[in-house]
């Protein structure tokens, strides 16, 4: 009879141990779930802070900048500067700037807009000079009797990072006679060039370097970017 009692006691202790093991497993899975949820919530908080920083910096500034550009455009179009027409212009510009202020400027990265505009204004005369030089070369090619052209399609990778610098580079290449941008596919430019001299001019990469200097990208990062990033980093550290 003591043997049966012994066997019953071992069975009971086995069962208790099994229950304890199951309870421990359940506690472990709940603990893992809770930590992963907290990590998700923290990541979402970081994302909202980043997006908010980008938008608060850019939303109101976009509106004011669009409003000024539209007012100047209206004054250029309409030659009358009396109070009635100017007030009409102000009302129309406010309405359109309010509706479309996120269309004109794509603030894809933090950076100082005024510096970019200044550098863009300096970039335009250099571009015009290149256009005049290429015009002479292409006119010589087209008017000579045997027309020594050698058309080919070249592709190259680019070191620029944002939408608007790609578009600026593509438009500058198309404006220069002799080269046309055909497509931009997955970060590679497909360019049709008319002769070997024009293709060599493009291969040196001077235009791409100048566009990177205008938009403060690639190896042309400056102090203002670091200051902007520091502010966002401080906000992140405070909340997380």
């Amino acid at each position, binding site marked *: 009879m003591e043997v049966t009692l012994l066997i019953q006691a071992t069975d009971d202790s086995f069962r208790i141990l099994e229950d304890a093991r199951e309870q421990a497993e359940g506690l472990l899975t709940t603990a893992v779930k809770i930590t992963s949820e907290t990590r998700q919530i923290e990541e979402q908080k970081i994302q909202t802070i980043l997006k908010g920083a980008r938008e608060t910096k850019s939303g109101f500034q976009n509106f004011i900048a*669009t409003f000024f550009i*539209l007012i100047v*455009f*209206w004054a250029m*179009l*309409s030659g009358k500067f009396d109070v009635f*027409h100017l007030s*009409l212009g102000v009302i*129309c*510009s406010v309405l*359109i*700037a309010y*509706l*479309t202020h996120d*269309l*004109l400027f*794509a603030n*894809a990265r933090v950076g100082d807009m005024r510096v970019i505009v200044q550098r863009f204004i300096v970039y335009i005369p250099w571009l015009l000079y290149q256009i005049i030089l290429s015009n002479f070369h292409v006119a010589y090619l087209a008017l000579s009797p045997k027309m020594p052209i050698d058309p080919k399609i070249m592709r190259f990778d680019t070191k620029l*990072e*944002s*939408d*608007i610098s*790609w*578009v600026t580079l*593509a*438009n500058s290449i198309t404006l220069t006679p002799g080269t046309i*941008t055909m*497509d*931009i*596919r*997955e970060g590679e430019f497909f360019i049709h060039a008319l002769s070997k001299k024009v293709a060599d001019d493009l291969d040196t990469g001077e235009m791409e370097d100048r566009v990177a200097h205008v938009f403060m990208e690639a190896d042309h990062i400056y102090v203002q970017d670091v200051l902007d990033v520091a502010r966002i980093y401080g906000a992140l550290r405070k909340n997380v």
Partner: protein
Amino acid sequence: MIRQSDDIIIGTVARMLVPFIQLFALYVIMHGHYSPGGGFQGGVILGASLVLLLITHGLPETKKLLSEKGVAILSSLGLLIYSGIGLLCLILLGNYLDYSQLSKILQVAPNEARSLGILGIETGVGLTVMAVMFSIFIDISTGGVLPEDEEE
């Protein structure tokens, strides 16, 4: 940030041009009595700017700027402005669309009241023309199938 699609150049350029096109359209409406223009021409240019946004960016992006409910409201609003000004002149003991009666409310000389009255109805005409052109283009391009019908 960067879209991996084929129409990145035309999309960015069209997006930057749309505010200028719309401002030019409003300039054409407001200067209807000095230079070529007026209500209908300005409305067509406004509609053309929305069509440009539609063909380069697709329908969901353009709906952020002007939804279909907004189109319905705007087309009726333009007509309301037009007939509302006419009725206002009728209430003030004149003929229908006799703008000189507006000088009783606005306290200006009758010929200036006529000029302001015409400006008002040109605005109404422009709004209606823009809304109707955009709505016709949406109907033709989607084949008349609304998104809630497609989901079923």
